[in-house]
């Protein structure tokens, strides 16, 4: 099974990759922006996407900061894939948690409601906390229940 991780924070991305490698036999591809995430999703036969809600437009390099930072880049990406006729199962792994505690001015439940428009392809939203292993458990459960 081919999994695409779209996450711009390398520390968080490494944690997700480590967790998936330790617990599942997935072929993992990663991307760190809206643009590279979209291209990776189109170019590969992806079965499942794990993505962050806020991502830069382009990959960050030594000479580029990645262009516009998209607060709802994850959502924009899935929208764009849908328009292209590419529907892939996905889940969101976000650091946003409480109401009013994010640039989004939305809490995790509101974001969840927004994502329901993607129907069955949307598998859920998980709160990521680097000090708490709860996200691992929830991610594992979701993959087992919804993907495998």
């Amino acid at each position, binding site marked *: 099974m081919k999994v695409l991780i779209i996450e711009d*924070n390398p*520390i*968080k991305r490494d944690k997700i990759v480590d967790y998936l490698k330790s617990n599942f036999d997935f072929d993992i591809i990663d991307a760190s922006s*809206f*643009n590279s995430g*979209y*291209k990776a999703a189109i170019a590969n036969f992806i079965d499942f996407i794990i993505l962050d809600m*806020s991502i830069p*437009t*382009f990959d*960050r*390099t*030594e*000479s*580029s*900061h*990645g*262009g*516009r*930072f998209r*607060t709802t880049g994850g959502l*924009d990406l899935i*929208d*764009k894939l849908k*328009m292209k006729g590419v529907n892939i199962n996905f889940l969101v792994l*976000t*650091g*946003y948690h409480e109401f009013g*505690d*994010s*640039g*989004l*001015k939305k809490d995790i439940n509101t974001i969840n409601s927004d994502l329901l428009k993607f129907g069955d392809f949307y598998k859920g939203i998980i709160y*990521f*906390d*680097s*000090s*708490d*292993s*709860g996200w691992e*458990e929830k991610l594992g459960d979701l993959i087992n229940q919804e993907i495998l």
Partner: protein
Amino acid sequence: MLKKLLKTRPSKLKIENSIFNGKNKNIDDLLKILKFHKRNDLIFELASDSRLPSEYSNIYTRNEKFHILNKPFTESNTSYIYWLLGLLKKDSKIIKFFLKKQEEFSLFFLNSEHEKCFSVLDEMDSICLSWWSIKNRLATKTILLDEISDNYIDELKKTYPHLNLSSVANEFQILTKSKNNIDYYLALLLSRFNEYKKSGLEAALHEGNIDSCNLLPITFDLERDTDFNFLQCFKEWSLVDNYLILKSIVIDRYSRKKDIFTDKGVDKIFLSVLKEIGDVDCLNLIDNKNIDIDKEIEDIVKSYTIGNYIDAVKKIDFLVLNHNKKCFDLFEIYTKSKIYSKIGFEQNNLYNKVCEYYSKILNLDDDSYHAKTYLYYLALFTRHDQWSISLITHLSLDNSKINNNTNEILLRQNHILGSINTPKSRSIDFIEANSNLSDSLPVYRGKDKNISCSSDFTIYSDYLKLKFRLFDVNEQLNELIEFCIDEYFKNKSSYNFFPIEDIYEKIKNIEDYSGIYKIEALLILDIYRTETSGNVNDLVNKIFDLLLQELGGYKLSEIFSKKIINDKEFVFLKNICTPIVLDSIVDFDSNDEVINERVSIIDLLLRNKNLPELQIERDRVLESMLSEKLRAKIESGKLYVDVQAIESQKRSSYDQLFKNYQIASSIKDNTLNTQLELKERKEYENKKLLLSANIYGSLVDDFALNEEYGLDKYLSAEVRHQVFKSEIRVNFEKNNLISQKIKDNYITNTFWSKKYSYVSPDILSEINNRLNIFSRNIDDIIERANDRLRIGVTLDESNYIFDFGPKEDILSDISHILDNSNIENYFDNLIDYMWSWAERCAKKAQIVINDEMLPQLIGEVSSVHSDIMRIKNVVPMQDLISSIGALNTDIKNATEKIINWFRFVGSKDDISYEKITVVIDAAISSIARIYSGRGKTIKFTPVQSDILLSYQESKSLFISIFTALENSLKYGVDLECVKVNLKNIDQITSLEIINKLNNSNLDAENLIESIKAKWVDEVKILNIKEGGSGIYKIRDMLISASSGFCVDVCIEHEEFILKIEIINESFNNRRQSN
């Protein structure tokens, strides 16, 4: 008495005669018991009893008692409406008298008879003082006499010493100054009501709704939902005012087709009270819904319909002059009749003035914005009067924001006019229902539905409306959109009549876009966004994607360079094809390509039409590329504010706020020293502070909090949400010294227990316990610091580091900036102030991280080190001890990196500097990447340089190098590389951009002379003529930024050389900050 009442069974309670013979306490006690048992029938009976002492009623005849508290209802209570209706019944004669006076006042007012207006108000005041009277006195002075009424408002405080005037007086003062600009007054009220709504408190929400209902016509606050049960918040107002609020709630609820009262028991009582008062208006709504049209009105409508305009005008003039209320709903007929018959509007009465202004709106006059503003201003002043409701209905029906659902609400509110309501104001289906009328209509009134020429119409808005209707009936969405765009390009006032909400909904709900004209759809969405500040980004992106598919390419600059660009395409390229839309094109591989495409589009547009705004944008777009590069280079990109986005999207609303501030500042400025006392000066200063607070509040919303471009977007997503925490924590994780938690309990650190499996389990267990405590303490320290990296906006001192709360000293600074700025520079000055404040906060963040969090972390490491040394005692566990030892360096490095996050790119202060080599690298790499695909190369010879440039200097140098290189690559000899040489000679850093000349027969001397001949101030115009990309501009930009820059050109060995010299001593003594 209370004891006796307490013993009485609720059903046996009644109003005893004796209750009125004793002290008021007996009445208070009885009322308490009646409220407790919800005996609303008896509450009504008590309040309506003529023997009720005057202290209980809100009839204020003496100044000192005005605004007294009506004690019986101090809190929200569903019984209050019964009490109020009882009081209205008791004093029904006064209300009846008031209604008569209200009508008289309206008619004198519309006839501009100010003396009679004052006389009516005096009569009313002698019976009962009221806000209604105060406001109308103010209206008479301001509108009819054109007086400056500041003194009257000031006098009110002396006349009514018990009146709580502070907020109302401020509102009045702003309203009186809003003749030419009502937006600020409206924004002020709406922001107040929004505060109520956002409070989450039910009572506040309802109080806000009733307040809104009292002050604003329904058009301005369509969301409000009024509830009688919260009327008691206005209990201390006069009975007259209470009645007006009650009546406006009745109209509001009726208009929305809601039950007037949710409590069924009130209905009958209310009807009986209305009949006693004789309020025909309210009875029109409640008791008599199918009222026949008045014969005189019918006659006038008939004259108008058949084109006998002079007769219609004559009859309406007669009604107005003879103070007949039948003129209240005839504004439209009177206005149109005068336009058709070419009779001028007289200046001697307000009725004519209203219609003259209305005619300007209908005919899309250049002055139509001000005309509309003035009419809204009038309608807000006279909110509760019948003619005002009618006027607002007519104005709103022509409003583009109003859709079909809202039309019905507006028409229903007009039912209050009863039999004098015109047929058009009665039914939403008027046009369809009267289609047979078209036979009797003259041609210019739309008799021929196929009419397509605007010149056939005397009233231009009628032409627009007819066309819109025809497109709608024929389901011609593309044609409708095209028509709207064409009309908008011709005259922006036409937007007022567009069915824009319907168009937006239709575009949004299209399932198959293949038949839609995409450029036109994007343009109408852009018009919608411009006029309403609505967010249409998703829809724009969707349609834009489909358009690219149709065009078969993504580089629009190339696609459109091959054709003649028409007006619509020009606006499309200018307004829609901006980086925020272009960056969603996945064929672009980098932000540089996006920016370059935008620059190419701007260049293409400039070749078609040399607009100064495009040249300004070109520089700004390039500047955004620089900041992008700098953010990447110095790792400071975590914090950013997209000021360009704020300016492009919000500048017009800031301009409005600034103008409002100037209006308010001028209110008393010139009289302060001579006429006002010290206390009043303080009040004046406070008022200015209030307006500064309003502007500052908007700045905080945009600069600090906006989720699209404000500071918190970056602070939240790029720092606070796990990024900061992960960056520190990972150092503990990689040394295996911190574990994760499950449901708040830290899990066992298995790494060391496995590694030291041979060590005593007791020691391992103790070490594990200590590491768990360590994990918790470290997470707590990080969490505490992380939690402070937020934006504070409260008045109190905030624990949040980025504290943008409206503190007095900040507001005073803002006020000072506003006082010393003009419309040209105030925005930059305010943004500079916000930058400097953000910089202060960022410095504070650096201090908190470096001086508070870091020592705490090191302290914890030291503590765990000594504890583990003690626990392990002599057991060799060197790896564990080494891991702990390595932590100090790791966390110091991580802290240093994080501290660097808190630097801004883009601030114009004098303390942040960038290395010149970084700026040159950034410019060269930006353009080199773009042209490398086209077979053109840049050969760069770098050297070391310690010169530091301010942001302004960096920006000028970046744009200059970019522009020079772009020109060289575009116009130089094909397949020849462009050389960039950087040299350090004798304290001068020299940058040369060299390209082979295309024409070797060129007269080099003449060319250089002609270029240099333009380097005088008198030809600044070249800045524009050369399209912003000429050598003149490069030189002008650099020498304006610093006297340390010199620019020269020469031709040597068939090579054109642009030389930029940087005199080192001009840039000495600078230090790059952290």
